[in-house]
């Protein structure tokens, strides 16, 4: 009964958000385009033969960056920006009265956006293959499922981190600047701009203990068929989710106690 109710809620939320997102197709297409930085990086790598030093062939590297693009497309999170706006405008108040954690709403928003984004990402990949026909490959079903799973886990980790930051809105008015700060290590260490294997040894020694390489590098390596440690990657992702989730619950319950609606 209860699970049925939750299912129905989630389904309705998804449906509402999906139709909402479909209204902004152009926006989402543009957003998909704004994610093409990995391709520019690939261009620098192959054009200067930088990949020879890290022993990755041109083809594998181009697959890697294509997968990095895909993983990034489906793990983009912006909950802190929506939440900040809603909480500054006082829109959170009605959400808090509803018998549903407002973060479900944002979660559904993100999922719906990903579904809307999917065709655009496919088009970009298609264009990429036209220019690089030699890098076409078909991953086997098991790998495909595992990499979809790990991309989803990466999305979950980022969603949790941002939700924790978003809850800081209850204390300070501008939590999004902290997110911009955290975005910098994510950008440089996650493997979006350069695969983690290419990092110097003094970085590689500690980076695998942080969540960053599991956000993009691990799923992208998995999907593109580059060498990676599957069991370690998945278990680290799950470990980080288990660490972050209680933290989120704690900060959420503290924050809602602290919350005072606008004008009260």
């Amino acid at each position, binding site marked *: 009964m209860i699970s049925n109710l939750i299912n129905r809620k989630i389904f309705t939320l998804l449906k509402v958000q999906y139709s909402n997102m479909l209204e902004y197709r152009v926006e989402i297409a543009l957003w998909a385009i*704004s994610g093409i930085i990995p391709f520019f990086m690939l261009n620098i790598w192959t054009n200067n033969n930088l990949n020879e*030093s890290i022993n990755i062939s041109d083809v594998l590297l181009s697959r890697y960056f294509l997968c990095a693009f895909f993983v990034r497309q489906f793990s983009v999170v912006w909950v802190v920006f929506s939440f900040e706006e809603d909480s500054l405008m006082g829109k959170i108040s009605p959400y808090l009265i509803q018998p549903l954690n407002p973060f479900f709403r944002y979660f559904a928003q993100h999922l719906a956006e990903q579904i809307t984004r999917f065709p655009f990402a496919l088009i970009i990949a298609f264009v990429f293959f036209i220019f690089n026909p030699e890098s076409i490959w078909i991953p086997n079903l098991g790998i495909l499922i595992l990499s979809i799973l790990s991309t989803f886990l990466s999305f979950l980790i980022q969603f949790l981190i941002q939700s924790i930051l978003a809850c800081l809105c209850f204390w300070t008015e501008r939590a999004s*600047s902290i997110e911009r700060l955290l975005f*910098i290590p994510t*950008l440089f260490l996650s493997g979006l701009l350069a695969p983690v294997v290419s990092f110097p040894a003094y*970085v590689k020694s500690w980076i695998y203990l942080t969540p960053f390489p599991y956000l993009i590098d691990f799923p992208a390596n998995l999907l593109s068929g580059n060498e990676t440690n599957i069991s370690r990657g998945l278990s680290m992702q799950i470990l980080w989710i288990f660490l972050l989730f209680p933290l989120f619950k704690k900060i959420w319950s503290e924050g809602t106690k602290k919350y005072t609606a606008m004008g009260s």
Partner: protein
Amino acid sequence: MNLRKYLKVYKKFLHTSLASELEYKTNIIVDLITAILSLVGSIFLLSIFFQNNGYIGGWKFEQALIIQAIYTILNGITNTWFNPNLTEIVKHIREGTLDFVLLKPIDSQFFISSKKINPSGFLEIMLGILLLFFCIRINQINLNLSFLTLSLITISCSICILYSLWFFISTTTIWFVKTWNAIEVLRSFLYIGRFPLNSFSFSLRIFFSVFIPIAFITTIPSEVFLGLSVLWKILLEVMVATVFLITSRKFWLFALKFYSSASS
């Protein structure tokens, strides 16, 4: 000429926006750390590229650092002036408050592009200038008058091009209403400005100098610093900057004809 009036108005703008921004003091510190980390990150990325190669696109590491410095300065300028103002246009148009701007007895483009200022960008500009001085030392560049005038001219041209690009995209809001993501696309393209143009393949080089003149923004000023630049390139940059400024002005006036306020 009512230049004095504009100066007076601008002084008032500065005062009000500084007062409102300084309310969020911790925010400014967070932004400073973000700027530092972002510079460290891109130097880290650059060092990965140069790990086993002496040259990238004909540039040595020390020379490529100049590009980073100029990029940081320009990014600081973007964050101080362009970003806070031009994202405001989107809001003006969505909420119909552009009416009030148009009714004021001053130029609407002036009002819209200078109303706000974000002081945390200053720190980024200073960071960039520091790095630039460091680069001048390690590259043993002789400072003389002609060099200084040339570098000032090219950098101001870059600023004009950058401003026009931002203003162009923001102006399209009049038709498309929500162009947040178009701005993101521009941002991701501008990211290319961190690397020497020659490190990209031929087709991308053409794209970035003809369609979106990112090549002009950072590479030409850096070449001036290294004494590599030729006269026709500098003249071309001046021309491109003038054309961009004039067309962006024309485009704004043209777009205003299509502005029909909200709910009308």
